[in-house]
């Protein structure tokens, strides 16, 4: 007997070492997972944060009456169609009177974003007194200047590798030395839709597109999924047919999302002729995808309600339907809502099926209804990523930050609902 104990003792230290190795291996595994998460978040934040500010240039703007209101009638229509570009270029020319060549002037004029023309127009429309006067104004710089401003190291590299040539760089430095250059909050990012110019592109359009799409998804999937979950968990007889429904639901939960896109394309667009690129179709496709998630969550939280409650209600003479409706369903609502929010946040991050139904178009207008052409936040990210132009990269990362913020808010809401309202039996 002691013989065996001795034998075990001998091998013990080796076994303890392999125990430690194994535990360490597990630790390495989970560390990798955490490390990846940190790297992903870090790389996005480091690239995206600069998109929230943009470069502004201070200019002395002269609201020349000869340009804005040639006839002097202060007619709003006249002002609207006035050449405000000319006003901006004039003040740039005044800032650098030494620039005379046409070619060079053209380059100089591109320092200011074209979106400022409309802003100046609105300024004049709101205060017609300005006409004929001068005013110091901070104007949004073009994206090229913005990139140079955000990456000071670019001033050092050779001209051919730089976005701007030596001349432009010297103007940029002049602005900087005179204190006429500053960073400001990027208002366009939260108030505009897509644009070909990075400094004018924003997420508002795609955010609203996501909102309309998700609204449709919620309206369609929530009632249907809860109804299906209640039927399958509480009322359905156990037979082949309900088994088949279950297999279908479980499988649908694992069908690749792009297949739902093909379904939407073939049936909603080609057969039913619903509008392309519209949130209503996107919402329908995402609703089909979200159904299994909510059904499964509904069933799980119905199952968690103890049978004693059902027995109590049925014992009082309630029908099965009344029992579910009056007692079981209200008790399981927190769980169902949590599942729904999680399903919605999955739908918010989904993009592949929406590519199939045309929500991938370049859309400058902010959508106002369910049938307007629109895109959604993740697809906007995809579109920006596919744009080669410099300046869109940080927009893409910033778009990701906005998307992640929404997802964190939604998941936080889910956690809140779960902790605040869910009963533990």
């Amino acid at each position, binding site marked *: *007997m002691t013989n*065996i*104990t001795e*034998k*075990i*003792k001998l*091998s*013990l230290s080796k*076994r*303890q070492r392999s125990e430690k190795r194994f535990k360490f291996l597990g630790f390495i595994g989970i560390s990798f997972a955490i490390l990846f998460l940190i790297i992903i978040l870090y790389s996005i934040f480091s690239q995206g944060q600069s998109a929230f500010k943009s470069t502004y240039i201070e200019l002395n703007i002269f609201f020349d009456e000869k340009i804005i209101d040639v006839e002097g009638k202060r007619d709003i229509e006249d002002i609207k169609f006035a050449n405000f570009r000319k006003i901006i270029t004039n003040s740039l020319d005044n800032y650098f009177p030494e620039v005379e060549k046409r070619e060079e002037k053209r380059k100089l004029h591109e320092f200011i974003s074209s979106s400022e023309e409309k802003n100046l127009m609105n300024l004049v429309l709101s205060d017609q007194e300005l006409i004929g006067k001068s005013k110091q104004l901070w104007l949004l710089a073009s994206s090229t200047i913005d990139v140079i401003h955000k990456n000071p190291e670019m001033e050092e590299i050779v001209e051919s590798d730089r976005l701007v040539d030596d001349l432009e760089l010297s103007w940029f430095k002049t602005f900087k030395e005179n204190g006429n250059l500053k960073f400001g909050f990027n208002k366009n990012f939260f108030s505009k839709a897509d644009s070909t110019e990075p400094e004018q592109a924003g997420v508002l359009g795609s955010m609203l597109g996501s909102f309309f799409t998700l609204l449709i998804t919620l309206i369609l999937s929530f009632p249907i999924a809860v109804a299906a979950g209640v039927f399958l968990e509480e009322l359905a007889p156990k037979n082949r047919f309900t088994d088949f429904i279950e297999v279908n639901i479980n499988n649908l939960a694992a069908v690749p999302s792009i297949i739902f896109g093909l379904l939407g394309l073939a049936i909603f667009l080609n057969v039913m002729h619903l509008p392309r690129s519209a949130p209503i179709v996107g919402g329908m496709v995402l609703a089909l995808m979200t159904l299994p998630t909510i059904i499964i969550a509904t069933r799980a939280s119905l199952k968690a309600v103890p049978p004693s409650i059902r027995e109590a209600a049925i014992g009082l003479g309630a029908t099965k339907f009344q029992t579910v409706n009056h007692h079981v369903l209200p008790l399981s609502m927190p769980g169902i809502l949590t599942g729904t929010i999680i399903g919605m946040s999955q739908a918010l991050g989904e993009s592949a099926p929406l590519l199939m139904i045309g929500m991938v178009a370049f859309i400058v207008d902010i959508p106002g209804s369910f049938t307007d052409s629109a895109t959604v936040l993740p697809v906007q990210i995809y579109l920006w990523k596919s744009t080669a132009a410099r300046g869109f990269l940080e927009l893409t990362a910033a778009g990701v930050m906005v998307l992640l913020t929404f997802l964190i808010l939604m998941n936080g809401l889910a956690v809140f609902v779960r902790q605040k309202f869910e009963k533990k039996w």
Partner: protein
Amino acid sequence: MVMSNSIKIKSKKISVFYGDKKALDSINLEIPEKKVTSLIGPSGCGKSTFLRCLNRMNDTIDICRIEGKILIDEKNIYEKGLDPVLLRARIGMVFQKPNPFPKSIFDNVAYGPKIHGIVNSEDELNDLVKDSLKKAGLYNEVKDRLDEPGTSLSGGQQQRLCIARAIAVSPEVILMDEPCSALDPIATAIIEELIDELAKNFTIVIVTHSMQQAARVSQQTAFFHMGNLIEVGKTEEIFSMPKQVKTQDYITGKIG
């Protein structure tokens, strides 16, 4: 041969806490070698908890805290730096519900010898498995199907397989936690016979909720109630003339 009435295990002021709840209160108990000691008492009285202290199975529960000493052959098993692995190899355990591993019958019995590296050759292992199955009285029933999964056996056979698994590493003590509560009367009778047989070579501590079983199989009986050890003594004395009122009440069915 060691003297038959020597003491194998001594528990000195053992207290167990689950979080803030005290499950055992300062238990002092001596367990004689190569005898069967049964622990009885109503459910929740701490008898299983005490049993699990003897091979430090309570260590696997996060919130469990233990005070006091348990001496096996005069050495404290709760001493710092002592590896429970070695302890558990010396003390086998059989559980309430038969829990054969999802492996073949052979591999179930070979599990202990393999992890501890007790055997040197394949033949030695074969013999050891055969021997253990014989000792557990299972060999004749399963000798033709050692490759079949352990879970394919009946409940009573599974429990005997677990016993064979435990004795394969030649432990000094075998702990049994209500080993028959999940079995039918016939399987129970077979296990009880086996316990008698095993007591020749092993020190056995058995937790049981059946007083009749305690009376049938054990030489010493300890009665637990609400985390306290109320009375301990020779089995026939406990059942015929208990000294404590509570023991009397329990045996006559006044408390349960």
